[in-house]
């Protein structure tokens, strides 16, 4: 499959050599927070996408296109995100957008991009409503809350055999959405949820930990991002609570291990990104990332890379259907929805009718005694509709 694709591409590019004199510019944009408290995550996505673009530059050049990446900042703020989405819509050479980090930004931004048919591929949004609105241009490569949540719950019930669970979240659209799904799935299976609350606190968790000590749950689920969860895990373990701590793909960062230190033991999380050891491509990716940006590659970087690759493969497909001419945005939008992207860090990507990933392997990662991530289990999840 891959090989034949390459051969076609080579033929296509050979054919198009003649028209290469007038290089047209194709841009893909990233829309992520580049300033403010979440700029770190947003920058990772942008960097990942940049690597993908660098990788594909030559292929596009052969077809006579000059491929570029433009980074837009949404400041994790819905209004800024929308304003920048409209700006993206105005730049006709932008054919696809990788973004956003926050579901709260993705919803209005995709709405603003929908009429001009700019496809969006989110590397991070998990809220159900992102794709439930059925927009033609909104896709995502990560699992929905209602896929990831039940997967986490299933792991808690079947593998950890927990009877009492404490469910926490970070009061953001991401964390709360995920934790609510876990809560629902646990209750449906008759598991006792002894505590259910949210906190925006970033440093002091002593009140929550006291409650956990009192209620003695068998497992704790915390829907949140690693920088908050890491601090929580550290304090939790320091107070002598050793119950397993489970979360979603927001944990997927080596920073979690740095922040939590010894406290990271007994952390599990669900993610669609395959562990780096499992995929040879991932090794090259992380080496490249380190070389280009002088920083180690992390989860969101990998998702950004994957999302950009899906976008680029979609654009290539659209170029192909358009007989090697500059495709229209509508063509790219359709091509991306129909894309069959292979060889990504997170496996193969196909989208269903609303832009959710059709089937994905959900990996459950754990932190071993050597304080490194390792694969604990894989669970097959399917999108709620096909």
């Amino acid at each position, binding site marked *: 499959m891959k090989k034949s694709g390459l051969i076609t591409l080579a033929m296509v590019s050979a054919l198009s050599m003649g028209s290469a004199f007038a290089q047209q510019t194709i841009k893909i944009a990233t829309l992520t927070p580049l300033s*403010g*408290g979440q*700029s*770190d995550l947003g920058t990772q996505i942008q960097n990942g996408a940049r690597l993908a673009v660098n990788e594909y530059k030559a292929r596009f050049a052969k077809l006579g296109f000059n491929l570029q990446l433009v980074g837009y900042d949404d400041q994790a703020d819905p209004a800024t995100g929308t304003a920048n989405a409209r700006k993206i819509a105005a730049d006709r050479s932008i054919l696809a957008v990788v973004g956003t980090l926050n579901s709260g930004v993705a919803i209005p931004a995709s709405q603003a991009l929908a009429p001009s048919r700019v496809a969006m591929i989110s590397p991070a949004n998990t809220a159900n409503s992102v794709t439930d609105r059925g927009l033609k241009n909104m896709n995502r490569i990560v699992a929905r809350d209602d896929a990831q949540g039940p997967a986490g719950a299933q792991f808690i019930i079947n593998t950890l055999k927990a009877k009492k669970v404490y469910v926490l979240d970070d*009061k953001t659209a991401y964390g709360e959405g995920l934790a609510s799904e876990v809560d629902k799935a646990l209750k449906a299976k008759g598991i006792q949820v002894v*505590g259910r*609350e*949210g*906190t*925006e*606190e*970033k*440093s*002091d968790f*002593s*009140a*929550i930990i*006291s*409650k956990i*000590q*009192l*209620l003695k749950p068998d497992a704790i689920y915390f829907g949140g991002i690693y*920088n908050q969860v*890491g*601090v929580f895990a*550290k*304090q939790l373990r*320091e*107070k*002598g609570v050793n119950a397993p701590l489970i979360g979603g793909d927001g944990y997927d960062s080596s*920073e979690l291990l*740095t*922040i939590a*230190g010894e406290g990271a033991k007994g952390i599990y999380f669900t993610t669609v990104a395959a562990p780096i050891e499992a995929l040879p491509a991932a090794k090259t990716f992380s080496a490249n990332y380190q070389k280009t940006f*002088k*920083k180690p590659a992390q989860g969101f970087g990998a998702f950004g890379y994957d999302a950009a690759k899906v976008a680029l493969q979609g654009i290539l497909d659209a170029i192909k259907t358009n007989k090697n001419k500059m495709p229209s945005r509508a063509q790219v939008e359709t091509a991306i929805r129909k894309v069959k992207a292979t060889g990504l860090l997170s496996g193969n990507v196909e989208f269903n009718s609303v832009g959710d990933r059709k089937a994905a392997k959900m990996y459950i990662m754990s932190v071993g005694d050597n304080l490194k991530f390792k694969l604990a289990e894989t669970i097959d999840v399917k999108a709620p509709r096909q």
Partner: protein
Amino acid sequence: MDVQALLSFLVGVVVSGLVLGFVYAIIALGYTMVYGVLQLINFAHSEVFITGAVVGFEVFRVLATAPINGYLKLIIALLSAMIISGLLNVLIERLAYRPLRNAPRLVPLITAIGVSLILQDLLRILEGFQGRFDLTYTLPQGFSNTFCGSTSSCAAFGSFLSGIGVQLQIKEVILVVVAVLMLALLNYIVNYTRMGRAIRAVAQDRVTAGLMGIDSNRMISLTFLIGGALGGVSGVLFGLKFGTINAYSGFDPGIVAFTAAVLGGIGSIPGAVLGGLVLGVIQNLIGVTNILGSLLGIANLQSIDASYQRIGAFILLVVILIVKPTGLLGRSNTEKV
């Protein structure tokens, strides 16, 4: 749920609230000192304090493998943070507040907000060049162990503590000890030295103090130096306790600490301490209200959970200010017209 378990749960919550309260108290002192002298909310204090935390982080990082005692490292970290945060605070005063000494009250307040924003970004940029964003403290060996754990020489005392529900780590004990020492030192400087008397005189009446031969500008600089140094200490203690900081993590505790200062009666040193402790305990109690509600069978309390911790502090502040506008320990001074 037996009474004993409930009681030790409550004791545990209150004690961890008190530890938290000491962090707030010592940050609050930085606000209250400046406010006492200039009647200015030094919004930038939260960044001065987080600068101290960053300095502490760098010291611990550099000394991570140095063959010296952990407590010595801590002292070096505290001293460097005090010096740098103190000087930073003096610099801020010179550049941003002194030129506005005679402007309407609103003007320096707005400048202070501006300085706070500037410092946040500068810290982010500086740390960004190191390739880090969230700074994680690497503490000397043993700081995270349980205070009087089962293997230490005071294990008997330790088992007494855990019996009544108190669970402290060595770093938390260090925090409280350092905070108390600092409070005592500050109290001594302000109340029992010539310098302190001069500062109080300037706080009381700048013009008259000037007539008495006190260089009010120097005294104000000194106040900022002391306030900044306290900020530096609190930053290191903050990093010690919570382990992770970044350029923006000073703002939230800063606001709560200022609330504590107002709660205790702004301008009053014991007030700031009392306010911090009260706020720490109350925040923790609000955090466990839902459990208490379900234990006591009061359904309406069950929806009040940890997400209300911070705003609980603000609502408390409103109530206190309505009932006693001068705060818990503040004296009501007649307004000068």
